[in-house]
């Protein structure tokens, strides 16, 4: 198992290197932050002063060298807009996003699994189509629109929930639903198809031969096997959530890293953008690794050399 983890870490490092190069290039292509900081009538001399203050006057390869060596040491540079260490700004906001993501994931699972089971058990019937239709609605509505409609209905019309921002538990409901619904369709369909496959196998027949009730057969024997593919996709779902957070956090004024990424792009804040992308990639990769290790626990057949 240790050798496997080591190999994965090496692959992860290589991957981060690729991501770092790509984001370094893409950020610079997207324009110059100076334009957004100076006044309309700033002269060339003003721009030069700012350029030097922000270290953007150095040649490109030198900036890349500073960025990469810094990244290895954990120093990801100073955010242009916040004038503070980019990593510090990121980690200041990360807990807010991490409070939301698991909730959205759990919410999506809590609905996707029963829906998937129902659709599989009553395959081909109305229940199956209804569950499928409901799940597809999840990916059919643009997230920002769903969020705004939920705010309109639940906080303006019904006054039941606060409309935005972080706060008490009631503040988490709408953002988690907006984020979670996005995953519903994929998860539900996967649970259904893998469950159908498992229900056809011999050991299910043996389980029923033991006289076990259909519920136990489905929820214990089948579901345990059916959830393995779902777990393996947790990494992908987590990455989807991280991108989904950009929209949800903007709509619900959630001070998370999702919106930080968006601000970094709009303000061409290179160091912040590079830091956010890299750190997000690290999180997604580590989640993937944890999921793969969890996979071995879930499916004894898988023993990593």
């Amino acid at each position, binding site marked *: 198992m240790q050798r496997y983890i080591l190999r994965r870490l090496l692959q992860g490092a290589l991957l981060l290197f690729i991501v770092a190069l790509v984001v370094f290039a893409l950020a610079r292509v997207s324009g110059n932050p100076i334009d957004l900081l100076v006044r309309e009538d700033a002269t060339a001399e003003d721009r030069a002063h700012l350029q030097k203050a922000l270290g953007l006057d150095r040649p490109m390869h030198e900036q890349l060298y500073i960025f990469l060596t810094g990244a290895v040491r954990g120093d990801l540079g100073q955010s242009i807009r916040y004038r503070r260490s980019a990593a510090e700004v990121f980690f200041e906001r990360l807990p807010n996003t991490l409070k939301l993501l698991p909730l959205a994931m759990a919410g999506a699972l809590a609905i996707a699994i029963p829906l998937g089971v129902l659709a599989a058990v009553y395959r081909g019937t109305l229940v199956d189509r209804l569950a499928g239709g409901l799940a597809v609605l999840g990916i059919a509505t643009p997230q920002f629109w769903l969020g705004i409609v939920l705010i309109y209905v639940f906080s303006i019309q019904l006054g039941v929930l606060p409309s935005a921002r972080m706060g008490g538990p009631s503040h988490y409901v709408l953002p988690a639903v907006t984020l979670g619904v996005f995953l519903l369709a994929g998860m539900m369909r996967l649970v259904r198809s893998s469950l159908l496959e498992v229900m056809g196998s*011999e050991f299910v027949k*043996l*389980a029923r*031969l033991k006289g*076990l009730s259909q519920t136990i057969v489905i929820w214990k024997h089948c579901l345990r096997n059916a959830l393995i593919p779902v777990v393996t996709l947790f990494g992908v779902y987590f990455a989807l959530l991280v991108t989904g957070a950009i929209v949800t956090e903007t709509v619900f004024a959630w001070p998370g890293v999702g919106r930080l990424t968006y601000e970094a792009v709009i303000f061409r804040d290179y160091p912040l953008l590079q830091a956010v992308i890299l750190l997000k990639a690290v999180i997604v990769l580590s989640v993937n690794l944890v999921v793969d290790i969890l996979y071995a626990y879930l499916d004894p057949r898988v023993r990593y050399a």
Partner: protein
Amino acid sequence: MASPGRVVLEVRDLHAYLYTRWGVVRAVDGVSFALREGETLGLVGESGCGKTMTALSVLRLMPEPAGRIVQGQVLLEGEDLVTKSESEMRRVRGRRISMILQDPQTSLNPVFTVGSQIVEALRMRYADGVDALRRLAEEALRRVKVAAPAERLRAFPHQMSGGMKQRVVGAIAVAGEPRVLIADEPTTALDVTIQLQYLVLLKEIQARTRLAMLFITHDFGIVARMCDRVAVMYAGRIVETGPTRALFRAPRHPYTAALMASVPRMEASVERLPSIEGQPPLLHHMPVGCRFAPRCSYVDDRCRREYPPVVPIGPAHEASCWRVEPSPPSR
């Protein structure tokens, strides 16, 4: 062979059909047989003749929603299983009638340990605490001759050989001390040496518990070794039933005779094994009259028009064919 006891399982004129997109597949089309305590009845026939479907319909495990029992009775110690509700059937399965499936590789749940799957079966019968059940499970494994049963309980199915897994399946099947055990080609997936050990094991279990066994196979070697009586199935129906020795020595139904002829004999050197021309009829397009008629070398137009009745031709020996003359039943 232990002296056969009272009738434990009686199937009367069982019809079980599969409703598919292309029409109704009459997989079990009027099957009747009886099974006595301590006795082993072989159910033989080419693949696709409805052997497994018969077993599944006895246990009411036909594939939903296509399969349905249309007609007939399945009397287990006098109680008709066809009319029982699903929850009543659950109390019957595993406790009074059980089954061993063909492929051990897929019969055990890969994500649970062998021990937990045995305990699960035992819990159906005994309401003891977990550790009591684990001891029972260990005992069950010892009884099916699994070495070092204590550790094996903690093993996962993929850590066991095919033979070992089939033994575990056997242990599970008899854990509830059923009165009837259906073995659906349990050794086909095993290699020959393990096959023999498994058959001996099944015989020992039967001797100890006096359970009745329905042994489904297409291998006549196994039939000769295991079965007291044999029922030959063709296209959803039993064409001949009788004591194993009688069928081997003097098969009366043309299909049984042809089957017996196509089995290679150790003693006779044979260049080419005789085989039966033609194909068994498609189960959703049954011919009128005797279903073996298209391939029978003694066919006459009567066979094509009318399905022959079941005719007693010896002690507990009967066949359904126009050429067979009835002889007075021995008892």
